[in-house]
């Protein structure tokens, strides 16, 4: 089966040690995680993981089910790039003297729609938001100018473009089920 990049979005309870359990599902099948981002979600007490990995659809289907099976994972879903809006951020530390000497440098920054967020006599920091390809290609261009001291990029953050909020709906259903159990217990 053909491999493509999938974005796996996981919602879980905010419990220590869960990240380990989620990543273990990938390592067990020797699937490399390309990027990983963990943050609070819009739901109180719920954490959101955004994971990207190259794999095929059959495998990713089993992967998300195996992740979802973890007791404290609320839901896990996979998406192709068409089904999400996604972004990454990158920071580039460049040497200020070299950067200023080279007239090409500021052109490159403008061409990529990046911005300079810090300048001092020793180094400057460039920030770039966007998709992986642009971030990499800006890095390559700056490297050609011989001024990059450090480079770091974030994992992908992604938001689904569907009109349907599956996690909210799931939690709503679960709460309804819980009140039902509670009522039965009191009867």
């Amino acid at each position, binding site marked *: 089966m053909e491999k493509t990049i999938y974005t796996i979005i996981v919602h*879980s*309870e905010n419990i220590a*040690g869960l990240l*380990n*359990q989620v990543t*273990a599902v990938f390592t*067990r099948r020797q699937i490399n995680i390309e990027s990983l981002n963990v943050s609070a979600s819009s739901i109180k007490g719920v954490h959101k993981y955004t994971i990207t990995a190259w794999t095929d659809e*059959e495998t990713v*289907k*089993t992967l998300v*089910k*195996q992740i*979802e*099976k973890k*007791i*404290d*994972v*609320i839901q896990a879903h996979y998406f192709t790039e068409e089904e999400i809006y996604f972004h990454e951020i990158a920071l580039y530390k460049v040497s200020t003297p070299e950067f200023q000497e080279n007239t090409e440098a500021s052109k490159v920054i403008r061409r990529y729609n990046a911005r300079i967020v810090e300048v001092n006599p020793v180094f400057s920091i460039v920030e770039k938001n966007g998709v992986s390809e642009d971030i990499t290609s800006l890095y390559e261009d700056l490297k050609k100018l011989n001024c990059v001291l450090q480079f770091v990029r974030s994992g992908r953050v992604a938001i689904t473009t569907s009109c349907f909020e599956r996690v909210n709906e799931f*939690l709503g259903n*679960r*709460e309804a*089920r*819980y009140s039902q*159990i509670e009522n039965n217990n009191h009867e």
Partner: protein
Amino acid sequence: MSKDLITGAEALMRSLEHQGVKTLFGYPGGSIMPVFDALFDHRNTLNHVLVRHEQGAVHAAQGFARVSGEVGVCLVTSGPGATNTVTGIADAMIDSTPIVVIAGQVSTSFLGTDAFQEVDLVGITQPITKWSYQIRRPEDVAWAVARAFYIAGSGRPGPVVLDFAKNAQIEKTQYKPTKLDFIRSYVPIPDMNKGAIQTAADLINAAERPLLLVGQGVELGNAQSELRSLIEKADIPAGCTLLGLSALPTDHPLNKGMLGMHGNLGPNINTNKCDVLIAVGMRFDDRVTGNLATYAKQAKVIHFDIDPVEINKNVKVDVSVLGDCKQTLAAVSELLKVNRHTEWIETFKDYEEVELEKVIRPELHPSTDSLTMGEVVRAVSEAGENKAVLVTDVGQNQMIAARYFKFTQQRSMVTSGGLGTMGFSLPAAIGAAFGAPERTVCAFMGDGGIQMCIQELGTIMEQRVPVKIIVLNNNFLGNVRQWQAMFFNGRYSFTPMLNPDYMKIASAYDIPSKKVFTREELSLAIDEMLKTDGPYLLEACVVEQGNVLPMTPPGGSVNQMLLEC
């Protein structure tokens, strides 16, 4: 909530009692001493069985759970005590056995400092448990125990680890009895889908050559009678997985035998001839399917399971029926028409005759003087009117016992299927005896397996556990030897075994025993064994280079079984 303050250890005792625990298997040590101290005051309600090694405790808890359907409990100390349970935890995970392992842990102030007998148990056991949790405060005990028992026993069962820090055992808390039957992120039983029920029923109604595969899920879901009604109504022949063997009586006319590598010819070959394959509570393990590329390609596949992960994991299915099989089987059954598949069922007879001729008769009625493993198993089974609980070890003894032991009662098969843990049988049999005290427990093991947990003879001695131990001694690690003969040019690399005198060992443990070589001796010894009140060890000296047949060679197709080697 009671205003009185009690220790975390005492809270654990009350929580276990609140969960209905009556038996636990364990071994004390430094980091669990406060719990054992509290246990001393509860020893009349919580029957603690002192094992001789923590691996014994966890296998005993498994055996207990498998026959009783309750959650097995095991109590050990930190560090080596905890790591000694790891094999059993992994075993329980892969075989869906509900157990709760409570291990001591160093005090929270020492965590991460490589303190004496500190080990990251939660880290080690996360991949092999349903849930693994560290209790760091006494006020969390009641909640954690309630959650542990709920998770272990609900849905697809499995092991749970509670890593109990010593300070939380000693510190005081108020205690409120807690039960838990809801976790919002955990859906133990997926909702039944009416559409899937209908589609499955339509497929089965239209089938001309249906075959049903019975897995352990049927036992775990207490759906034995629902399964029977379904196959009887629609007249569907069935094959059982190793762990599903006792879900359907061996002599039921629709039970066509065991599936898999050393299963029966009929259900294996007909897997590749049926038009609708109905899998219930089984996971298409590679020992069942053989080569997946050629497995049941001609058939429409219906998969009943409680665990969505199992659907399409190994075998692509046409219809998945998620839910509790007690309900889903009944729901599908209701939509089935009464049917007859006489011609199709007749086709099993040809395979049965071939297998009888080539394999079964030579095994059960050998022309040689030496005993075969098969005749020993069958003789024990019949002497107990096929009512006993079978516990097996791993290897030839396991496959032969599974093939020739007969079952008339449910929850009678205790074996290490997925993990294949040698040494499992002796401690698991102890657990089974406690879990089903009214039943006879027969544990078959090889001369290899008995020595892997032989220390549990001490537990048997102390508790007078009425386990019937049958050692099938061929002076070889037989299964590996068979493979060496078949696939490694007969180079018997480290499979011959020099054995100790098992009767002397039994006698040292005050366990009556007999060593037999002939059929006459065997028959007398079995009588004596079953008449003996309490444990008994029967050593049957069997043919040294016996083989388990038929066999699907590794990677081979399910319809290409070897009848000889």
